[in-house]
């Protein structure tokens, strides 16, 4: 890149630069056209997770909960809602996109019962050798007879001859542990009866946003096309997949709207300043190059681009356009003065770009892919924009390139700046106040809940919790996870854990739990149960003894003898045997295979109105000596994960600050000058943070990125003020001639800085109006921060006569 000194007259160099640039843009375009864009929360989850985090991620992306869509039908009257629910369900049950469509209609109930009944001796945990001893049979029989005489007798009477030990009742009991909504006219309804409810499970995982969108469209279509459709009825949907679809839509529409408005505002503003369409168009070239380079770099580096990165990119337009503003405004009037700018100002701008890069480089180290994406985007974008401004843009300027002379504004500014020092005391007081505010708010400054990042609106969250409460849907917050090398091993561990969890239920610590081993016991357990069943002759003798003293005759149980004989040699249950039953869905969700690795999930239900005492459950589990068993509180885990990132990001940002300081020290070789440059930036950061605290905004990770941007952008201003004091940077040589305005920053430079900061404020200020919290956080930090950085730089700049 030594072309600069000799570029004039070397049109070949110019051509090479332009061709290289065009090739670069083309390459970026190709990369981008092949890029994948996402909007899910995955960008905010770790890149190299621990096993527990890995599980969390899998659950969030593909877990059972991620596949659920909760549907509510509101409006109209109860019977219309129930009818619509049935019509929608009927249509969607035929749709392969849905694994299950549940609205309370007993669709698979028959199959479920048949499966349970036919396999009761393999499935029932009560099947032990003791149960089939004379005493065991006697106890089981008298219990069944009691049940027969009880109010529930009506239900079990027909089962008695085949199942006198009551295994079916055992199994049904397990099935009924969950709470289900009430039914109105044969379809689920909310407790207040105002809403019909449906619960659907999609085949696609919750992170497959396109598939989720298609599923949502199918539901809506089924609703609209239902024969009973009426304008009085409304359809509402929620669920993780629905959230990803709506947030994608929100982010998409916001990003496109904000970028259009941003470009229009900045363009209008620059047109006002330049009074030249050519300048405007040329000024946007570095911006476009930067944006393309940023997206392409992220796509190459991460394999996919997050929507938030794009949203951030729109704001960065306001920053990237600065370089061309500096070039146009700081150049002396006249066609060929750009090379003079390159000599005089480029080193300063280059140092500004470098400080920005150093600041953002720290983000690259973040374990948080979302943050690292922003870092990479900024670095690539700013480098490309600055490089294009420096090496390509001057070649593209027409010979008669002219822009409106803004020196009048500059002169006015320069008067202001000369008086800015008078504000030092006021600024110092403001700064002290800001420090005091920060000290006061230090405990509540940061929001370490991961939900603070969610782009989902409060209304949607409220609908979600209301539908969930109506449905009694599992929130899958507490899980026991067992890992192992085979299906069999995790099922066996699940069985042991189930025993422990059952004691916790008996002690009232838990309301219930689920386990895949309930529907698919391990082979070992199935064998053991089979082995508990005595041979027919033995059983017959024992039964004859067992009925003594009971008001039944042994002959009644001939079907029982036959069933037990069959069960002794029946093939063991395989996963495939569950197909077509509602239990298949449970097993698929609770038993996960990844390569050679199996996990079983046992979701726990907290007792009504109480939480789960995590340490108690952990203690009970650790008593088993089972390896690879973890109790996970998903919410605590994810919050902890996020607050870990927040801490990491704070450290990294501080690291970035240290790197910037080091860079400045290295280049400027004067600690005093470095302090003068850093001081206004630090002041701006402190003031903005205090301002956010005053307005009750808790800081999230994106505020931090915003602060980093304030430092990055503000460093340009501070450097220009510093440059005015020290005309020549080391290594710049003595080529620049002293100017009349030697003693102060030139009006032209001042004007360029003001305009540059205004475009930045326009770009980021727009984000403050976004209803996506993370974009809004960036906006409210950067827009005031940049202005403050400029003002503080002016106030703290060394006075010519000082």
């Amino acid at each position, binding site marked *: 890149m030594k072309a600069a000194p000799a570029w004039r007259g070397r049109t070949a160099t110019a051509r090479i630069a332009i061709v290289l640039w065009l090739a670069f843009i083309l390459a970026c375009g190709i990369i981008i056209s092949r890029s994948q864009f996402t909007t899910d929360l995955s960008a905010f989850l770790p890149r190299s997770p621990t096993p527990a985090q890995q599980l969390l991620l899998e659950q969030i992306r593909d877990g059972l909960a991620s596949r659920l869509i909760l549907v509510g039908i509101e409006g109209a009257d109860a019977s219309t809602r129930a009818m619509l629910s049935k019509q929608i369900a009927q249509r969607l049950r035929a749709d392969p996109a849905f694994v299950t469509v549940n609205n309370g209609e007993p669709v698979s109930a028959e199959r479920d019962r048949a499966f349970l009944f036919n396999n009761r001796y393999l499935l029932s945990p009560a099947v032990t050798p003791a149960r089939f001893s004379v005493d065991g049979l006697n106890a089981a029989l008298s219990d069944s007879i*009691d049940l027969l005489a009880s*109010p529930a*007798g009506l239900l079990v*009477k027909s089962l008695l001859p085949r199942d006198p030990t009551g295994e079916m009742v055992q199994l049904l009991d397990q099935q009924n542990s969950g709470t289900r909504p009430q039914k109105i006219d044969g379809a689920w309804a909310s407790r207040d009866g105002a809403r019909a409810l449906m619960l659907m499970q999609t085949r696609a995982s919750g992170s497959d946003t396109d598939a989720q969108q298609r599923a949502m469209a199918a539901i809506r279509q089924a609703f609209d096309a239902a024969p009973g459709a009426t304008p009085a009825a409304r359809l509402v949907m929620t669920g993780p997949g629905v959230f990803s679809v709506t947030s994608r839509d929100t982010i998409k529409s916001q990003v496109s709207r904000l970028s259009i408005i941003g470009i229009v505002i900045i363009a209008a503003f620059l047109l006002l300043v330049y009074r030249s369409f050519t300048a405007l168009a040329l000024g946007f070239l570095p911006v476009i190059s930067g944006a393309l380079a940023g997206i392409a770099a992220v796509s190459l580096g991460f394999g996919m681009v997050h929507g938030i990165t794009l949203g951030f990119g729109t704001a960065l337009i306001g920053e990237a356009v600065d370089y061309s503003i500096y070039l146009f405004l700081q150049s002396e009037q006249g066609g060929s003065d750009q090379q003079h700018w390159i000599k005089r100002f480029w080193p300063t701008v280059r140092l500004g770009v470098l400080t920005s890069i150093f600041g953002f480089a720290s983000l690259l180290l973040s374990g948080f892919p979302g943050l690292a994406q922003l870092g990479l985007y900024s670095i690539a974008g700013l480098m490309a924009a600055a490089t294009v401004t420096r090496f390509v843009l001057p070649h593209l300027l027409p010979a008669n390139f002219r822009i409106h002379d803004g020196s009048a504004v500059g002169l006015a500014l320069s008067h202001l700046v000369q008086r800015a020092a008078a504000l030092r005391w006021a600024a110092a007081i403001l700064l002290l106040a800001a420090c005091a505010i920060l000290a006061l708010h230090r405990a509540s400054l940061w929001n370490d809940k991961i939900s603070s990042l969610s782009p989902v609106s409060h209304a949607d969250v409220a609908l979600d919790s209301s539908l969930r409460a109506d449905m009694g849907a599992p929130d899958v917050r507490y899980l026991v996870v067992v890992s192992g090398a085979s299906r069999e091993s995790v099922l066996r561990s699940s069985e042991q854990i189930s025993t422990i969890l059952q004691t916790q239920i008996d002690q009232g610590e838990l309301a219930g739990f689920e386990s895949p081993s309930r529907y698919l016991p391990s082979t070992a357990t199935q064998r053991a149960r089979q082995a508990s069943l005595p041979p027919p002759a033995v059983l017959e003798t024992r039964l004859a003894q067992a009925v003594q003293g009971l*008001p039944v005759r042994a002959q009644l149980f001939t079907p029982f003898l036959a069933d037990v004989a069959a069960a002794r040699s029946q093939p063991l249950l395989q996963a495939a045997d569950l197909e077509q039953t509602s239990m298949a869905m449970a097993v698929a969700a609770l038993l996960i295979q990844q390569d050679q690795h199996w996990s079983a999930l046992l979701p726990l239900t907290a007792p009504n109105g109480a939480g789960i005492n995590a340490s108690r459950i952990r203690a009970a589990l650790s008593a088993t000596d089972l390896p690879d068993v973890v109790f996970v509180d998903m919410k605590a885990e994810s919050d902890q994960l996020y607050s870990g990132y927040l801490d990491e990001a704070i450290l990294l940002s501080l690291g970035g600050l240290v790197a910037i300081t080091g860079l400045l020290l290295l280049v400027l070789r004067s600690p005093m000058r470095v302090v003068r440059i850093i001081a206004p930036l630090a002041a701006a950061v402190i003031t903005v943070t205090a301002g956010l605290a005053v307005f009750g905004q808790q800081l999230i990770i994106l505020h931090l990125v915003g602060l980093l941007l304030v430092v990055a952008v503000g460093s340009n201003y501070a450097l220009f003020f510093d440059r005015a004091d020290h005309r020549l940077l080391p290594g710049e040589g003595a080529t620049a001639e002293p100017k009349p305005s030697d003693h102060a920053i030139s009006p032209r430079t001042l004007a360029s800085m003001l305009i540059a900061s205004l475009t930045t404020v326009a770009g980021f200020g727009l984000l403050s109006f976004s209803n996506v919290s993370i974009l809004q956080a960036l906006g409210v930090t950067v827009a005031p921060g940049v202005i403050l950085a400029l003002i503080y730089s002016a106030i703290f700049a060394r006075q010519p006569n000082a």
Partner: protein
Amino acid sequence: MTPPAFPVFSLRVMRRVLVALALTLVPAISHAAEWDIDQLMRGLAQIHSGHARFVEKKFIAMLDRPVESSGELFYTAPDRLEKRTIKPKPESMTVDAGTLVIERGRQKHRLQLQDYPELAAFIDSIRGTLAGDRKALERNSQMSLEGTAGRWTLQLLPLDEKMQAVVTRIRISGVRYAVRSIEITQADGDSSLMLIEKLTTP
């Protein structure tokens, strides 16, 4: 002394007393005369809660001898009914709106009535009778009333085919507005007879 006034007064009083007596007696008499389902239902609906002792005998073909149990009944209008069996084994059955909870020893079964329509129809027959909810009863069964206010029997024959497959007939008999017995005949010939003795009337 005003002797002449006395007879007049006394006559007037007598007449008034008679009229009053007649007036109060009229409903009672008409009760006896036109004792019908409406009367019974209206009377039953007046009773908002009850507490009674019961003895129940179940005749089940599969079992060699009838099973006898006894305990207490609690009723709170309109839809809470608890049957607390004390002998031979303590257990309880509570129906509250749409939920049926059966507690036997440590086990607790919670059933949604809507999932067991036969059971629901059967329970609703009894609840409906206690609540005097004629409409609810007529939805599920064909009703007929025999006897007098002093000794009546209400017979319910299920309308629904599914229900008919389980229960053939429910006969509830009582004295005035107190239910004294419930007899259930099942489709398979099994039957049960519950005798009820009122404990308190709050």
